């Protein structure tokens, strides 16, 4: 007891650097202001003022994050958070994903159902949690950030309070997500037990000692931590919840989760994996390589027979995480570079399809493959973005997805994991099977399609599948604009990848400093 009291006496509150905390304070303040704005006003506030407050918050935080890129690294709050280019670039990604989700949700039923203030406040809190998570350089802040982004997402998944499938998605995500958190926490406690420290730098020093090389406690801790993170990033075999949750959750939330949560886990793997557990990398490198291979195949094969597009995108997201993990496995400058490029490209390629699905859902066509039929003839402004994004996700040349996959494969080969590069190529080949199915549904005349797919007997005409697509394209200009922008970005960065490569280079340099 006396030792503990003595230890407690040595604990001092850290000094708080408010200036450096600015973006985090903006997000935290914005989350509170948003909910109050929605309370004071009437209908008008609900419809207009609240989204504007939320978007102003996100944009201003994004500007502060963007300004920070290239600034010298600082460590604040007694070494709890590190503000460097790695966190700045990932924060930018989270803010962009949240902005896309805000556009998607702006005039949807979800907002009326859940309340605008509550929805946007939770969305901003999620971004706040992710910002803390990627900056964390301490196991305590890491866990806190992890839960701060997870818990609001459970609520957001269930935001369509009166739709049973949304509640089901929320409950499933809560139970499995919390299971992941508990496993992660147990792993963190073992890492703490083995090393005696919670900050990454001290853990790295302890791990590099020969005494801890093959410590079973440390190894078990690393394995449990990886498993916990794998639950969140839907890495196979911890992915089973993903399709159910994406299908049930409101589409804007699914679109946000599909990109942002995955980015957050990748960022953590970069920081924890390379900084704290870098010296032990020969232990976890192979584990991650195996997970990546399983993930690529499970995702791509699972997506093949889906009728719901959101389910299909969930499985495709599983596969995409497998590709990105190859960059982590390589663990080199090139690996981080490839991850940086791929994540930005992935944001564009993935938001486009979700915007098209959201448009179709609002007209009552649902998220099924059936809603895509004859889209090419009736609503080219939706059909083209969808086609381009599908081809980009499949990694066809002159799209950003192609450049990204090329870089990832190059990184895997460079990091002596040539077989992983082969797996990526095989996975992409399988993925054509379901991405092209969507393209076929969009462009093929019904007669040809029925002949090819042989489903003429049970297929309805497009008139049965909700309202006419051209009408709802005109009714939801913001969704069409988002889809077109995303598709344009997917092609533009395939032709002219330099701006993204520049960002990726900054990330790779910052990431390289983490690798000891």
């Amino acid at each position, binding site marked *: 007891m006396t030792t503990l009291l003595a230890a407690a006496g040595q604990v001092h509150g850290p000094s708080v650097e408010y200036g450096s905390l600015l973006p985090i304070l903006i997000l935290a303040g914005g989350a509170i202001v948003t909910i109050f704005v929605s309370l004071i006003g009437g209908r008008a506030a609900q419809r207009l003022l609240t989204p504007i407050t939320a978007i102003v918050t996100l944009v201003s935080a994004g500007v502060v994050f963007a300004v920070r890129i290239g600034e010298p690294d600082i460590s604040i709050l007694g070494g709890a958070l590190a503000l460097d280019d790695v966190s700045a670039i990932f924060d930018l990604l989270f803010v962009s994903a949240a902005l896309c989700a805000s556009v998607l949700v702006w005039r949807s039923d979800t907002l009326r159902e859940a309340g605008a203030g509550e929805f946007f406040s939770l969305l901003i809190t999620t971004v706040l949690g992710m910002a803390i998570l990627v900056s964390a350089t301490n196991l305590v802040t890491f866990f806190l950030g992890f839960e701060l982004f997870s818990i609001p997402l459970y609520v957001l998944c269930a935001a369509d309070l009166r739709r049973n499938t949304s*509640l089901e998605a929320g409950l499933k995500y809560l139970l499995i997500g919390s299971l992941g958190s508990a496993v992660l926490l147990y792993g963190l406690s073992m890492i703490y037990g083995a090393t005696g420290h919670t900050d990454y730098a001290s853990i790295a020093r302890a791990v590099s000692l020969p005494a801890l090389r093959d410590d079973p406690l440390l190894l078990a801790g690393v394995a449990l931590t990886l498993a916990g993170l794998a639950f969140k990033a839907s890495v196979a075999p911890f992915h089973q919840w993903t399709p159910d949750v994406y299908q049930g959750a409101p589409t804007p939330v699914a679109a946000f989760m599909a990109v942002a949560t995955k980015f957050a886990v990748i960022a953590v793997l970069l920081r924890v994996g390379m900084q704290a557990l870098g010296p032990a990398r020969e232990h976890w490198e192979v584990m991650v390589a195996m997970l990546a291979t399983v993930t690529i195949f499970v995702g791509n094969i699972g997506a093949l027979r889906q009728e719901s597009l959101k389910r299909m995108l969930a499985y495709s997201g599983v596969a995409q995480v497998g590709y990105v993990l190859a960059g982590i496995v390589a663990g080199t400058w090139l690996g981080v570079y490839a991850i940086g490029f791929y994540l930005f490209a992935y944001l564009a390629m993935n938001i486009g399809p979700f915007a098209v699905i959201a448009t179709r859902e609002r007209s009552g066509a649902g998220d099924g493959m059936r809603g895509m039929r004859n889209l090419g003839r009736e609503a080219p402004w939706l059909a083209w973005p969808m086609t381009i994004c599908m081809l980009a996700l499949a990694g066809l040349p002159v799209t950003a997805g192609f450049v990204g996959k090329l870089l990832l494969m190059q990184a895997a080969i460079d990091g002596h994991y040539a077989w992983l590069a082969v797996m990526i190529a095989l996975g992409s080949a399988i993925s054509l099977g379901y991405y092209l199915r969507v393209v076929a549904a969009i462009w093929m005349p019904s007669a040809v399609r029925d002949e090819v797919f042989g489903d003429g007997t049970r297929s309805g005409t497009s008139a049965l599948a909700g309202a006419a697509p051209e009408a709802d394209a005109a009714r939801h200009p913001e969704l069409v604009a988002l889809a077109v922008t995303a598709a344009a970005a997917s092609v533009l960065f395939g032709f002219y990848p330099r701006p993204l490569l520049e960002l990726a280079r900054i990330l790779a340099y910052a990431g390289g400093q983490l690798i000891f």
Partner: protein
Amino acid sequence: MNIAWYIGLSAVIFCIGASGLIARRSPLVMLLCLELMLNAANLSLIAFARMHGNADGQIFALVVMVVAACEVVVGLGLIVAMYRNRMPIDIDRISELRDPRD
């Protein structure tokens, strides 16, 4: 007393929680099992803090308690919402979302 006993006890509690989460069908009991798992981690954190003689683990455990409370609040809220929608409070019967069957 040997530290191994605490770690052993925490591992047993963690396994009870994990097996309960897999075996039980009521979401309420599953939330209880999640609490068990988090508290198992707390116990091991505090035992390790004692072993290393620093307070990091204790602070970590305090943070975990707050987080666990938040998780339960959200979980209970969801269950109430499901009850209002007259959904079955049984994880095996909540299965509208699933892969298509051939």
